[in-house]
């Protein structure tokens, strides 16, 4: 995969996979119930998810973004119950 001018980019992709908002997050609820015992009575909305990082290389950031989103759709997330977000940071440009 090479762009017309032959340049390539490399980026770190940070991927967060979370249960969809409508799906009960049992882990998050347990964590939330545990915090007041440690003195934090001011916490709500705890959700527990997964963080993945990977390095990708390709012709452009837009292309890489698309590829990583495809990875999420096919494999890294189960979109029946999970949603994902991808953020790319270019490295040694």
């Amino acid at each position: 995969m090479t762009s017309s001018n032959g340049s390539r980019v490399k980026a770190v992709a940070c991927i967060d996979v979370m249960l969809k908002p409508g799906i009960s997050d049992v882990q998050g609820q347990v964590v939330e119930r545990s915090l007041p015992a440690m003195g934090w009575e001011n916490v709500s909305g705890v959700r527990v998810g997964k963080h993945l990082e990977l390095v990708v290389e390709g012709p452009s950031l837009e292309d890489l973004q698309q590829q990583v989103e495809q990875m999420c759709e096919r494999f890294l997330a189960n979109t029946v119950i999970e949603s994902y977000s991808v953020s790319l940071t270019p490295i040694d440009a």
Partner: protein
Amino acid sequence: MTPNVAVVVFPGSNCEQDVVYALRREGADADYAWHGDDNLGGADAVVLPGGFAHGDYLRTGAIARFSPVMGPVADLARRGAPVLGICNGFQVLAEAGLVPGALRRNEGLRFLCIWTDLIVSDIDTIATRACQPGQTLRIPINHYEGNYTPPEGVVPRVVFRYHDNPNGAWRDAAGVANDNGNVVGMMPHPERASESWLGSEDGRLVLASLVESCNLAALA
């Protein structure tokens, strides 16, 4: 004709021997198939057994669904042949999209290894053909991710319901089928209820249904 049933072995499967034993008891010519094979040797039906395929890394069944053998498994499913996924096998079928939905962590976050009473709620499937409607089957479960969740806006065919929902599954679903009823995924282990000295023989009805379905498919 004696039906030929392939039982797929993934790295990390651990129920395949029990499944082969129990299927042979129901008169099937059951044998193992390796997950790396790209064919099922002309099998009439396939069972994906329980275990922890590929360590269940990322998600249960997420890696196993890309095993080479899953191509022929999907072909069999498309042709209307009997395909049964038990426990981890159910999770693999769900990840592969061969049955609708996903299996999440149990409500209560406990690994459950207990006997359950199942109510047969659909007898028109390859796993329940030999059962009576509403019949109760005593079959054990052994899982951490058995909390069945359907895709948004989809109402799947529920084949077995828990009498006492142990894991939070949607509509007490212990097993579901595809639209045709030829692909069934179930969390309980019928092979562990296949001898009286195991505590129950009710699982034999599930496996006998599968074997009987092969014969019907051969006639069709």
